[in-house]
């Protein structure tokens, strides 16, 4: 039996993980390298083992073994090949296996690095990684087994791995199929990106714990994991953006972000992770805030586990769902235990984590980073309270409540504005010491330019205060960033006699972290343009029109032509409307908003027709139609200005992160110089 093989592999991985944890702790405590080495091998073994199990599950999904309840729940014979593979993360049990798989892959990659100088960290990194893997495997093995089968017993149909007494196996002829919402290219990469972000944040956490346990609390652990953190941040950001894009394309409500608890669950570790990314620099440059960095990474880890839990379980919908799901209490128990244990370790090392330096100035880079952290934590507090409160309310008063957009937007808006402002001025301040005078001298030219933009906006008739503040800040931050970059490029060109493009290229190469960071900031600025555009200026209208009639919105004319209804072989009924789009009398082509109805899951999906440009999106949704379609159909039309800048900004952001995280070639050449002094290599470097 293939399923037995897959499950067996999981059980063995679980046992190997437990062994690895024990061996690593024993080896580290007794200073016996052989045991640590054994633990390392156990760590390395988990990856091929989980791979076997995951491949088994994929095989079962591909070959339509519908007697397996997970396979039945997420695939059907009509589904295309690629969707059957991605169905692996289309349900809870499979996504837990997938999570463990990625976790094990990343932990293995870390284990394979050269540990020369950092050997003392190794056993504890292994312990943290394996504890995390073992926890997820335990969930899979004991509570959410994707290899469970259907059995028919006297009392009805049950799902179990082992055959219950007096039961007969059931073999359904077809599966229920993947949730239609998940049948979208965005859904294929969105969860893996998010999960990659989640698991890669475990790596810096494991090094932090290793630093606490071993007492080697200098900034070594931060330097070792800097790239991991950046990569984790990149994946998490990508996961969030792709999720937004998927919502925009598939959910049919004209937006990309709905302040849903599931979204916020993925957003919270991003908040702490971004704060961490900034505040570790204070420790690296100035030896300050070591304790705070520990707190941040511990929070990030807890929120990662929390996020994984929420994105799949639907627990937040009600206390009852939480009580019914067996894994809910397990998750909360695990989060609680790891959080308390980590904090206990931190308190144990509290005195070792004293600041090496002092802060001198309110406007120094480190103080501005502290304000940045304060704002991120403020947003986190708002998000956390909002996500948790419905549960609390139902638990204590029995009253179900909804916490949604108005609450979050009102509370986080000023904090985001503060962050945008800081993003502008912080790069101008120096480590250690800055004054109003030094910052002011650097800031006045770009600030002046930004006020010119503001005046231009007011003159052209923009009256929304929110948009004016937003666009002014966008201009302010963008100008400062570009100005700083430009000044450095010119200074370098003057100094070295290079051309400006060459100077630009080399400068970025010399300090990729700074200029990668600037590039990321510019990406955020571009995204902010899109967000302000759609948040402030989105308009919508809805109307029922006969064939040939039109709806007008923001200068666009949407004319209803026809509607066809037909069945597709993959088990859905499609109603597809054809509308002509024109603007000021000029034809802009046709859009095809449609409604797909999936028979098996009895689920409708609204796929918008979108005409997209850098200026705006025209987003048309088919809401309803009359029995004789020419008699009328109801359309909802959104005009979403500037929203494309959001997607453009996120691509820019990826680019910036890659610049910042790309492995340093310089260090390798340094090593070569040492290896071969006086040889030809030196000449090639100069």
């Amino acid at each position, binding site marked *: 039996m293939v399923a037995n093989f897959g499950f067996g592999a999981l059980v063995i991985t679980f046992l190997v993980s437990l062994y690895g944890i024990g061996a690593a702790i024993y080896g580290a405590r007794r200073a016996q390298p052989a045991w640590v080495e054994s633990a390392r091998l156990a760590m390395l073994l988990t990856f091929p083992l989980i791979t076997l199990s995951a491949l088994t599950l994929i095989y079962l999904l591909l070959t339509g073994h519908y007697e397996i309840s997970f396979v039945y729940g997420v695939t059907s014979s009509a589904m295309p090949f690629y969707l059957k593979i991605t169905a692996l993360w289309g349900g809870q049990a499979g996504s837990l296996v997938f999570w463990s798989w990625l976790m094990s892959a990343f932990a293995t990659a870390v284990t394979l690095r050269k540990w020369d100088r950092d050997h003392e960290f190794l056993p504890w990194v292994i312990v943290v990684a394996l504890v995390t893997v073992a926890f997820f495997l335990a969930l899979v093995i004991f509570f959410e087994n994707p290899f469970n089968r259907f059995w028919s017993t006297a009392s009805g149909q049950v799902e179990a791995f082992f055959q219950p007494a007096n039961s007969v196996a059931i073999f359904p002829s077809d599966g229920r199929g993947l949730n239609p919402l998940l049948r979208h290219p965005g859904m294929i990469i969105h969860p893996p990106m998010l999960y990659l972000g989640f698991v890669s944040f475990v790596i810096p956490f494991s090094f932090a714990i290793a630093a606490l346990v071993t007492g080697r609390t200098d900034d070594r652990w931060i330097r070792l994991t800097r790239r991991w953190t950046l990569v984790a941040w990149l994946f998490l950001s990508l996961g969030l953006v792709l999720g937004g894009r998927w919502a925009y394309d598939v959910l049919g409500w004209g937006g990309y972000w709905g302040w849903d608890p599931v979204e916020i669950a993925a957003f919270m570790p991003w908040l702490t992770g971004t704060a961490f990314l900034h505040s570790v620099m204070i420790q690296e440059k100035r030896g300050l805030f070591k304790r705070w960095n520990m707190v941040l990474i511990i929070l990030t880890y807890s929120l990662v586990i929390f996020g994984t839990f929420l994105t799949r379980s639907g627990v937040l919908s009600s206390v009852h769902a939480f009580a019914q799901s067996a894994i809910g209490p397990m998750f909360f128990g695990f989060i609680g235990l790891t959080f308390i244990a980590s904090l206990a370790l931190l308190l144990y090392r509290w005195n070792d984590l004293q600041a090496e330096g002092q802060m001198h100035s309110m406007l120094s880079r480190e103080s501005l980073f502290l304000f940045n952290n304060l704002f991120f934590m403020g947003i986190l507090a708002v998000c956390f309270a909002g996500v948790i409160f419905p549960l609390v309310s139902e638990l204590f008063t029995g009253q179900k409540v909804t916490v949604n957009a108005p609450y979050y937007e009102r509370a986080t808006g000023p904090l985001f504005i503060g962050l945008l402002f800081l993003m502008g001025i912080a790069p101008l301040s*120096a480590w250690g010491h800055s004054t109003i005078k030094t910052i002011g001298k650097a800031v006045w030219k770009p600030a002046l330019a930004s006020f010119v933009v503001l005046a231009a906006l007011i003159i052209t008739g923009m009256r929304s205060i929110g948009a004016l503040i937003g666009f002014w800040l966008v201009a302010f931050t963008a100008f400062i960033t570009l100005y700083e970059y430009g000044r450095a490029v010119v200074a370098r060109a003057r100094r070295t006699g290079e051309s400006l493009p060459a100077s630009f290229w080399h400068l970025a190469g010399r300090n990729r972290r700074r200029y990668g960071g600037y590039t990321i900031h510019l990406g955020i600025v571009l995204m902010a343009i899109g967000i302000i555009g759609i948040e402030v200026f989105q308009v919508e209208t809805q109307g029922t029109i006969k064939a040939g009639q039109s709806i007008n919105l923001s200068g666009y004319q949407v004319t209803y032509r026809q509607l066809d209804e037909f069945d597709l072989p993959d088990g859905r009924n499609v109603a597809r409307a054809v509308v002509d789009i024109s603007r000021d009398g000029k034809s802009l082509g046709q859009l095809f908003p449609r409604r797909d109805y999936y028979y098996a899951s009895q689920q*409708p999906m609204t796929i918008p027709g979108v005409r997209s440009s850098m200026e705006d999106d025209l987003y048309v949704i088919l809401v309803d139609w009359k029995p004789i379609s020419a008699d009328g159909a109801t359309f909802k039309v959104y005009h979403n200005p500037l929203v494309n800048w959001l997607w453009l900004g996120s691509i820019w952001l990826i680019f910036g992160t890659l610049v910042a995280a790309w492995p340093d070639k310089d260090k390798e050449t340094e090593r070569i110089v040492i290896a071969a002094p006086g040889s030809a290599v030196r000449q090639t470097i100069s």
Partner: protein
Amino acid sequence: MKTNALRLLVISCFLALTLGLASRAAAQEPAPTPSDDEVNRVAKQLFCPVCENVPLDVCPTQACAEWRELIRLKLSQGWSDQQIKDYFALQYGDRVLAEPPRQGLNWLVYILPPVVFLGGVALLVSVLRRMRARAAAPTPAPAPPQQPGEPEDEYLRRVEEELKRAEKS
């Protein structure tokens, strides 16, 4: 007699006028049924009572379509947005509102984040205060050495330093 007839005429005219007006008013209200946009304006502020976190104006289910028709009916009867929202909250519980009403335990969700944030501010202020106190103390190592001549080019100085370092390697 004449006066009576006149009075009758006046009264009947008055009645006809008021009745006519009244009937016109009555006819006027249902005639322009509230548009989809008006319905959506209200529905946007409400949440689907059965699905989680789905605003009523975009929820594709049949039940929500009927609830939107209910909003249309209420609007045509002259109800205000607030009255309709209250009606839905009464019928289906507070979960149909976009945020919890400010009462009782619900205050928690409004108070907690500002309290945490203010706590953060207090912490930050105390850190900065301590910093200033230390800076004021006679510890002689204030700001890192600064080129006295050109403070405005501090950033460029940093860039140049890095370039120099890079050239050395």
